[in-house]
């Protein structure tokens, strides 16, 4: 091992000064994660090789080590904005001698909120429509701006959203499970970036009853049969079939056929 006991006499490598700056450093044009920037006064020993940062979330206990080279500042990223971090700095020379630690510096990173995301359009991928059916699993394509990797999207109650995948910063793909009892009607889609920036679109999608009326995982002629049999009926009519009233407006009519047509011919990945 190259590491020796740190020298404590005049030849020893020492840390001349160490200061912690809590800074917000934009890592790119879109957003910045939680970071802390540290800087210190340079050593003057001619055989100085570099500096070693040690840090952790408890004073005096440093679980992370980072050799930062022969520099006088460093930015630590990927930190938890809810925690306080404690840092010490060591200098080491070309012979591998390591100094005693500097004074401990501590700080809490701040969160930088980048440009808020905007949502311009949302479609249910299988039907390429703005309808999403009760029950089952659906994939959504969300188009907008300023999306970040790891963004979370939601459709409100009884819609369990999975992880998003990002294409550029303008398109998110999302899988969402809709409960069989989810409330029908327009839904607001919200996108929240990891930096807490958030954007939403009201009435982005309309939740409708499943077009797979007979629940055989296929939207086909048998389901259209249910609509035909309940055609032009209202909820007071004995022939009315609420399952065929896809938009739940109390009548089986052209709007239900329009919704059905969007899903006709689909084999559902998850049966309703």
């Amino acid at each position, binding site marked *: 091992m190259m590491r020796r006991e740190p020298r404590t006499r005049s030849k020893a490598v020492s840390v001349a000064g160490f200061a912690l700056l809590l800074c917000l450093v934009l890592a790119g044009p879109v957003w910045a994660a939680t970071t802390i920037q540290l800087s210190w006064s340079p050593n003057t020993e001619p055989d100085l090789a570099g500096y070693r940062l040690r840090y952790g979330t408890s004073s005096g206990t440093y679980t992370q080590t980072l050799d930062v080279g022969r520099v006088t500042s460093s930015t630590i990223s990927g930190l938890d904005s809810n925690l306080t971090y404690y840092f010490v700095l060591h200098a080491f020379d070309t012979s591998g001698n390591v100094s005693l630690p500097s004074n401990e510096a501590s700080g809490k990173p701040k969160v930088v909120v980048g440009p808020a995301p905007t949502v311009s359009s949302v479609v249910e991928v299988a039907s390429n429509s703005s309808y999403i059916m009760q029950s089952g699993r659906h994939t959504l394509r969300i188009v907008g701006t300023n999306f970040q990797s790891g963004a979370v999207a939601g459709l409100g109650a009884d819609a369990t959203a999975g992880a998003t995948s990002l294409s550029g910063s303008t398109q998110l793909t999302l899988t969402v499970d809709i409960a069989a009892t989810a409330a029908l009607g327009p839904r607001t889609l919200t996108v929240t970036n990891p930096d807490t920036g958030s954007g939403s679109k009201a009435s982005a999608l309309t939740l409708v009853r499943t077009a797979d009326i007979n629940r055989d995982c*296929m939207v086909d*002629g*048998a389901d*259209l049969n249910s609509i*035909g049999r309940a055609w*032009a009926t209202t909820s007071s009519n004995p022939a009315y079939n609420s399952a065929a009233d896809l938009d739940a407006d109390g009548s089986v009519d052209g709007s239900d056929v329009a919704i059905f047509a969007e899903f006709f011919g689909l084999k559902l990945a998850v049966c309703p």
Partner: protein
Amino acid sequence: MKSTRYWLTARGAGILMGLAISALIWSCKGGGNDNSPVPCTTITFDAADAAPAAGDVFLSATGSTCSTVNVSVVINNLSGIFTVGFDLTFPSSVLQYDSYTVGPLLQKSSTIAPIVLVTPLSSGLQVAMTRLLTDGPVAATNNEVLITFQFSKKSAGTGMIDFNSSSSSTVTEEVLDENGQTRPASFGPGHGGSVVVP
């Protein structure tokens, strides 16, 4: 001024005469006639179900030219027809789907036009048709046309047009009555046909 006008008129007459002579030579060139019919071979569709039985749903050619072919879905002797669903495959390398025409069967005594959904795919069609509540079911007497699809030539070749009963199909081949019950209809195998595009 007057002499100038006269000169222009004489020149115009010369040009007109030249054009007339050119047109005469052009029209007589080769002694042929541009309106002569060009011989061609019509597209043929050879239906596989030559002797349909009761309840058969099958394909039949109902007209073709050198560049188009009409293929009808026909039902033989079946009652209680309210809804029909099926999907077709066709050779997309030689034919292109253009349009459809609803046949008389589902429109019998209807007060409301039936709902017809036709979804064209890259090499197939998904179809669902239904009568509506107040009109009740209909019966096919002998052979009656449900719907006719118009295809046009894409390139020369051959292939099959048939109902898609493969595992990849996402539309069930079926005829349903006004109660949602399945009628005893048969979509094959052997209810399609082969097409030859010259």
